């Protein structure tokens, strides 16, 4: 399995609203002396001041798949370009896909779940979102695209912090965390972030889901260990959250985390999760989880983008390791109570 993964070319998706600093970051990645060669798929030729025959211009073509699933969209141009790039395997180490400022990251990510040939040759490494510290708060109010990009991110580069006061910075960070408490956040000026913090993250690698654990815990709901049917909580509408559901004023984008120390019933959980993403998948942008099933000595991990799920047994639970199940959903207007109740029914009595 590790060999298989290493043969696949890692693909980093670079998103961010107009003017946030994507091109600055791209130019840094391309010009810094890191000994790696990147193929870059850009949406606007000429913005990058570097001559490189591995910079490919693309039109963002979002195609619906003919499988009856309305949110199952892929980037058709990406399928074509990745296939073409594979002819030059060995000439580059990784691929970066820059999206336009107005793009929804979901079709890009879904391309890696849906297309067999893309899956064979490439793997999605992480969604990196560059955000403008000065203007993001405004964009989150008036631009749903900006909100999607934050919600979808594995890594957020909060750029231009030199242009804001510390109070403004705290405010914008709270807004980001209200939407996405799990992403790695880096504060930068002129996108000066260590490239190791944005590239080769393995954020979509099922085997590395646990490496996000510090963020899992940091943002988590420590008082929310036990899920009973009678679990009540009030979610605040300030900048802080309770019970894992975080609201910031009228944000409609939320994250929801669930835990159980009792094992789950796989026969109930799997159909529940599949039904949930089938019916609510348009609202659920990202999901991931580590699961402990009854009568199963292996840890099961899964992740999803909208209605698409992938999961696998990862490894055996270690001796002394708490067999705890943890799930995270990030989405828009999540039906919280329905998800909590459904999950509670999957816990072994």
């Amino acid at each position, binding site marked *: 399995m590790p060999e298989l993964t290493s043969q696949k070319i890692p693909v980093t998706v670079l998103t961010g609203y107009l003017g946030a600093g994507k091109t600055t970051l791209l130019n840094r990645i391309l010009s810094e002396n890191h000994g790696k060669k990147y193929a870059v798929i850009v949406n606007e*030729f000429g913005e990058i001041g570097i001559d490189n*025959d591995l910079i*490919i*211009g693309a*039109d963002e*073509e979002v*195609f*619906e*798949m*003919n*499988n009856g699933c309305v949110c199952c969209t*892929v980037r*058709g*141009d990406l*399928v*074509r*370009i990745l296939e*073409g*790039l594979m*002819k*030059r*395997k060995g000439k580059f180490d990784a691929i970066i896909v820059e999206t336009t400022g107005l793009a929804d990251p979901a079709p890009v990510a879904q391309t890696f779940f849906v*297309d*067999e*040939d893309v899956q064979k040759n490439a793997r999605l490494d992480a969604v990196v979102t560059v955000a403008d510290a000065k203007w993001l708060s405004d964009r989150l109010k008036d631009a749903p695209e900006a909100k999607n990009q934050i919600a979808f991110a594995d890594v957020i580069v909060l750029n231009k912090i030199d242009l804001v006061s510390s109070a403004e910075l705290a405010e914008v960070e709270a807004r980001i965390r209200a939407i996405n408490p799990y992403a790695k956040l880096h504060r930068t000026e002129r996108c000066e972030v260590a490239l190791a913090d944005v590239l080769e993250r393995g954020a979509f690698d099922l085997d590395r889901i646990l490496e996000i654990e510090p963020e899992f815990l940091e943002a988590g709901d420590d008082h929310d260990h036990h899920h009973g049917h009678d679990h009540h909580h009030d979610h605040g509408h300030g900048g802080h959250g309770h019970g894992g559901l975080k609201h910031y004023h009228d944000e409609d984008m939320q994250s929801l985390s669930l835990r159980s120390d009792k094992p789950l019933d796989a026969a109930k959980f799997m159909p529940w999760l599949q039904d949930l993403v089938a019916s609510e998948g348009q609202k659920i942008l990202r999901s991931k989880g580590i699961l402990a099933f009854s009568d199963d000595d292996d840890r099961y991990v899964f992740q999803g983008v909208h209605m698409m799920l992938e999961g696998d047994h990862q490894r055996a639970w270690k001796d002394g390791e708490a067999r705890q199940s943890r799930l995270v959903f990030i989405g828009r207007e999540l039906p919280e109570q329905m998800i909590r109740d459904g999950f509670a029914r999957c816990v072994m009595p």
Partner: protein
Amino acid sequence: MKEFDPADKSASIVSVTDRVRPLAIGMPVMAVHFLGGHAAFVGAEENVALVSGDGEIRQVPVHGGGILCVASDGARLVTGGDDGRLVALAANGEVALLATDPKRRWIDNVALHPDGAVAWSAGKTAFVRSGRTEEKSFPVPSTVGGLAFAPKGLRLAIAHYNGVTLWFPNMAANPEFLEWAGSHLGVMFSPDNRFLVTAMHEPALHGWRLADNRHMRMTGYPGRVRSMSWSAGGKALATSGADTVIMWPFASKDGPMGKEPAMLAPLQARVSMVACHPKQDILAAGYSDGTILMVRLNDGAEILVRRNGTAPVTGLAWNAKGAMLAFAAEDGEAGLLEL
């Protein structure tokens, strides 16, 4: 699906593997065509290897990068590359630059007409050059997925998202649009000009009967169809994409509508390439595990040409007389079989 026991079969199957002349092309191969008296092995990037009947290999540089598409009429081989160039290679090894995209966009598709016209595409634009007339171009709403000339007249099928545009480059008439939701990536006319078939991004084919534009859905593949080949006389269309060769019947006026396809040569590997013999009712099939079989269409009898255990077969072609079969795998291991 028929039951298949490979162990039993491999013991009893007729083999011509000892008659194959093995070739080491020395580069990944994306396609094979016959060009004059040579077999032309098109590399994934930069070169075409011209191989003479006695196995002599000559590398000819054609592109400064990846080779994205290729078409051949037997007299010349035309390739498009990620260097934005459209290049013609003659059997004597002469290379001619046919066109350069001014923005150095990728040349994604190419097609040749028997009268010498050439069509290619970059992004959303299809181009045609025929005879002495100047180059003409036609934009479609989304990136071109495939190009094919109709067997009669100068008519170009341009496959794209949500359908196919039929364009008459030398006529003022409006292009015809054949609509079908989804992304169409490959396109072919039947040799009798009655049907048009596309390979879609989904694992399915779509067809139109051109007389009345009736739809034909050909589904059930586990994987995307990347290789299609008309049997001698156009009676059936052989396709890759499953663990058997799927043959759609096109002999009747309704084509495959309401009919089941024939399933030939099942293996525990995915068919990656198909090439029908130009004159007889046999085909060659290459698989994802490197196996190559010759298959008789009427009874499915198989002859082993190449054993399994290597890279996927990416090139497979008969010469015009049908007396020689050339093949190559992705890793550049190749061969010639004289019949």
